[in-house]
């Protein structure tokens, strides 16, 4: 159990709030669509803070303009990877942005063991730090139970 005030990984826009219902997720998707963003779904069982590339659940949905369609994909991802972290990401292709504009977690494992901090003492008082997921020793796909 993680000891931060939420007891869980706090990445994304809404980790400090109660989990969003599907109806609330749909409102966020609609906001992104109104802004012209493209939604995509990504999942992982390695939520290390510097793990940039989660697995893509299909391609970004550039041509999908309907929140129900995005939710349908999310449901499919959840049933395939019920114990993984899943995030919804919105991409903004506007010139001088061309990056992620929204990102929030919509599925998590029941238990989040979190990370350890490994301190390697080097010269003088200098310490090299490594953050390591407690679940990361298990092979991919077997980290948070079947």
């Amino acid at each position: 159990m993680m000891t931060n005030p939420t007891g869980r990984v706090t990445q994304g826009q809404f980790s400090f709030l109660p989990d969003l219902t599907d109806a609330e997720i749909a409102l966020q998707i609609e906001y992104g669509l109104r802004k012209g963003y493209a939604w995509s779904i990504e999942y992982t069982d390695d939520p290390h803070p510097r793990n940039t590339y989660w697995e893509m659940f299909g391609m970004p949905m550039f041509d999908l303009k309907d929140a129900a369609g995005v939710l349908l994909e999310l449901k499919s991802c959840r049933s395939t990877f019920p114990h993984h972290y899943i995030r919804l990401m919105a991409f903004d292709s506007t010139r001088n942005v061309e990056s992620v504009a929204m990102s929030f977690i919509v599925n998590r494992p029941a238990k989040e063991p979190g990370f350890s901090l490994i301190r390697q003492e080097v010269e003088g008082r200098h310490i090299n730090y490594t953050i390591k997921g407690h679940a990361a020793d298990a092979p991919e796909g077997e980290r948070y139970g079947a």
Partner: protein
Amino acid sequence: MATALDTPAAGAITDQKKRYTAGVLKYRQMGYWDADYVPKATDTVCLFRITPQEGVDPVEAAAAVAGESSTATWTVVWTDRLSACDSYRAKAFKVEPVPNNPGQYFAWVAYDIILFEEGSIANMTASLIGNVFSFKPLKAARLEDIQIPVAYIKTFKGPPTGMIVERERLDKFGRPLLGATTKPKLGLSGRNYGRVIYEGLKGGLDFMKDDENINSQPFMHWRDRFLYVMDAVNKASAATGEVKGSYLNVTGATVEDMYERAEFAKDLGSVIIMVDLVVGWSTIQSMSNWCRKNDMILHMHRAGHGTYTRQKNHGVSFRVIAKWLRLAGVDHLHAGTAVGKLEGDPLTVQGYYNVCRESYNKQDLPRGIYFDQDWCDLKKVMPVASGGIHAGQMHQLLDLFGDDVVLQFGGGTIGHPAGIQAGAVANRVALECMVKARNEGRDIANEGPEILRKAAQFCTPLRQALDTWGDITFNYTSTDTSDYAVTPAASV
């Protein structure tokens, strides 16, 4: 075809023999005033607010500003004739009374691109604000705004990281970033200081921050601070699974000291360093280059700016400082809160934010933006709102500034009655619930207090924060406001 340079300026003496006879001429006679001048695409155009002494003609005063900020001296010199002097002369080309401010005039002055060394803010400022602000025939002068030609912009590299890449590095999207300045500003030992950092970051903040006057004093040597802070940052990152940072202020007595401190911050794995505005333009550009080479975000604290930006009749507007800093290359810039404890009219502050964040600024007089400015894809600066703000103002802050801002709650985190972590939780919950509500289409400017109260039902720290600070406001009249009233749009 005749160019602007061939046209004799109105008021200028065109007979070369008369023009260069030894003695004193009026600035407008020397060629620093040309009502017909049309600025070239490569000219820099400055808008000055001038208050001439009694009896000084405003056009002559404007010509004097042009003269004293470019080539003129007080008397005629024959050595002008060894140069293409007419092209080196800045040209005042328009003067207008400032609305509702008797005795003050706006003066527009154009500068040829040859006047400024490429990529040097130090050189540009030495001309534009070098001598002219002490010039006796003016009671006061203020550089209100500046339009910089794309040709000159392209001689600068701009922010080393930029707002977009910063978000990618930190993995934080779609919401303002949250920070806090460690308090008390002075007196904590390295060990005590790191405690505040750890609590704030673990509680939910993205950043903690050194204050502007934390360098390397007897109570806390800089190396000690960096070591304890980075232990706290890494421990908080492991506790939350998020990238965290703390602005390590590398400001020191010499640039060599600053490089040494920056190198140590990099060795310890910090994602960000900090520099105070008081170090000066050349040092800022040097540190910007260093950050570019070392994958570092550069946080700029505008320490000292109030001495020259605040009074409307004299100094340099902060919007000009912000433009120069975007060119010089900083990633974060304190740009005001509008609702907090420090000076700032909301529209004027929004103008500063637009200078930092837009790819192209359109003229926007109510926000104090006098010129269109094409930034030629130069990276964007993340503005920072810091100083006397708290969770109870979250709806106002999000409504005023949108997502691309760092909101820094120092006292509003560390002063929380249930502790620093609780303070951080209150701010993060307030932020997330407000972003969520806005995205859902709620009218946060009006429904904000209700949205916060509802979130406080599941979040005790937020309820405690609202009970403590909910009614605190800093409603003082701003000194630096636009001279142009907001006019309602003709059609909605």
